[in-house]
């Protein structure tokens, strides 16, 4: 056999890249280039902060989040996920600003030493809408883009394969590590660690659980490193990609337009316009 072909004979019939690799999304919005969706999410979030006030972010959300979500058919899930994401912050933000807004006179409500003020309410609403805008924009991206699609697109544009590797591997490591933490908790409980007792007993359980999660993962680093280097990982420079998400000059133009618009908005805000 020719040198190098020792282990595998010639392929029976030529088969191309299977269709499940880079399968296009269900809707037009899904099929947009990942960088376009990432840029619009980031610009929407920053713009919501820069515009401030109440009406601005609401209009922004309707245009940049609700509209596309409807088109992509993910509005239901978007609302649920975005609310779940925003809830912890929104509640705290609302309460803190409502009751603790300094220098406010118009007292709406007084409960003992704490007073709810109109100015506080106004600011609280502003922060609430801003937080909803940010989590809406981020959730829209999360629901319509596979992380691997964004990293392969960035890699095509010249981002180092190593950075793309870390991003992709992190996405798979988080759920794997949560599962590992569950197994470790079971193993320690089997050795008498009481995780159902008082708070103090549970705090004592932190080291026997967090310890193996970290040390167990680090113990695997050695073998993972060797396995990667045994498959040519150390070869410098770009690598071949099986596919790359489609992009168009129109989308590229749109991305630049968004960025320039954002810069202009921030510059205007800093210059004190419109107040």
């Amino acid at each position: 056999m020719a040198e190098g072909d020792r282990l595998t004979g010639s392929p029976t019939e030529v088969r191309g890249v299977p269709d499940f690799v880079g399968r296009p999304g269900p809707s037009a919005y899904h099929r947009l280039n990942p960088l376009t969706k990432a840029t619009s999410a980031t610009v929407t979030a920053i713009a919501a902060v820069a515009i401030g006030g109440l009406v601005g972010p609401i209009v922004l959300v309707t245009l940049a989040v609700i509209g596309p979500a409807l088109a992509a058919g993910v509005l239901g899930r978007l609302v649920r996920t975005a609310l779940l994401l925003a809830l912890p912050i929104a509640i705290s933000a609302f309460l803190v600003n409502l009751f603790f807004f300094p220098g406010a006179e118009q007292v709406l409500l007084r409960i003992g030493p704490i007073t709810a003020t109109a100015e506080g309410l106004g600011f609280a609403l502003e922060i609430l809408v801003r937080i909803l805008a940010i989590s809406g924009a981020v959730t829209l991206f999360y629901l319509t883009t596979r992380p691997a699609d964004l990293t392969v697109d960035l890699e095509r544009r010249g981002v180092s394969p190593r950075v793309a590797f870390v991003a992709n591997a992190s996405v798979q490591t988080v759920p794997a590590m949560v599962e590992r933490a569950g197994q470790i908790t079971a193993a320690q409980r089997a050795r008498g660690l009481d995780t159902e007792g008082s708070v103090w007993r549970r705090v004592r359980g932190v080291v026997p659980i967090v310890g193996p999660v970290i040390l167990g993962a680090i113990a695997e680093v050695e073998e993972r490193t060797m396995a990667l280097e045994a498959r040519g990982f150390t070869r410098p420079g770009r690598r071949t990609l099986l596919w790359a998400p489609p992009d168009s000059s129109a989308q590229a133009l749109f991305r630049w337009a968004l960025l320039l618009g954002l810069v202009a908005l921030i510059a205007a805000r800093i210059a004190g316009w419109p107040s």
Partner: protein
Amino acid sequence: MAELRVEGLVHVYDGGVRALDGVDLAIAAGERVALIGQNGSGKTTLVRHLNGLLRPTQGRVTVDGADASSLTVAQLASRVGLVFQDPDRQIFAGTVRAEVEFGPRNLGRSGSALRAAVSEALEAAGLAGDEGTNPYDLGQSRRKLLALASVLAMRTPVLVLDEPTTGQDARGTERVRAIVEAVAGEGRTVVAISHDMRFVAETFDRVVVMRAGRLILDGTPNSVFAADVWDALRSTYLEPPLAAVLGDRLGVGSTPTDASLIERLRAG
């Protein structure tokens, strides 16, 4: 009175997987029981009910006559010690000795009793000389023996081992066998999940075979590895030990271990 009793045990995982489909099993004190069967046959799910890590969907589990559902995992841990298959899922202490002390300390043991139990466990696992070593400086096979020692030191009436010989060499397997013999010798119960048919045939006096969440065979190695039930074994991806195959081929009856085959040949 049975030390461990499982009645009509059913367990359905939240994904809908019916891992146990009505299991009845009684294990007396001092018995040595091997639990074998293909991965996914429900072996690990069953043993996790013995120390309360899993609670039954239907049916009952009793330990020393007490219903396990009335006891917390921490309470059951003083009765049923469970050694997990992957040592890296539990090791956290900086030294071998500290890792072995973790279990007994949780059970409230201290002082000379604790020190004796720990030293004895380390001795049995062949780690007596490594008390101050960092567990992660040990090789994979000795870390597995460390995990075994860390439960052994708890001196629980019931000791459950999940694939103790996987990844061990000849000397490691021999050490595990010696530990099972010693623990059973003290009248304590040993239950082990294993795929090593020779280790099972030579070390355990009762073999329970599982398939798809049910018990399909339960008896001495002689009965479970006899030729007439080989198709049942193969239905759960198990091959009888070579000694049993030869015993059948030479028509000298059921000979699950080398010793039993030789003895039958010498008598024949």
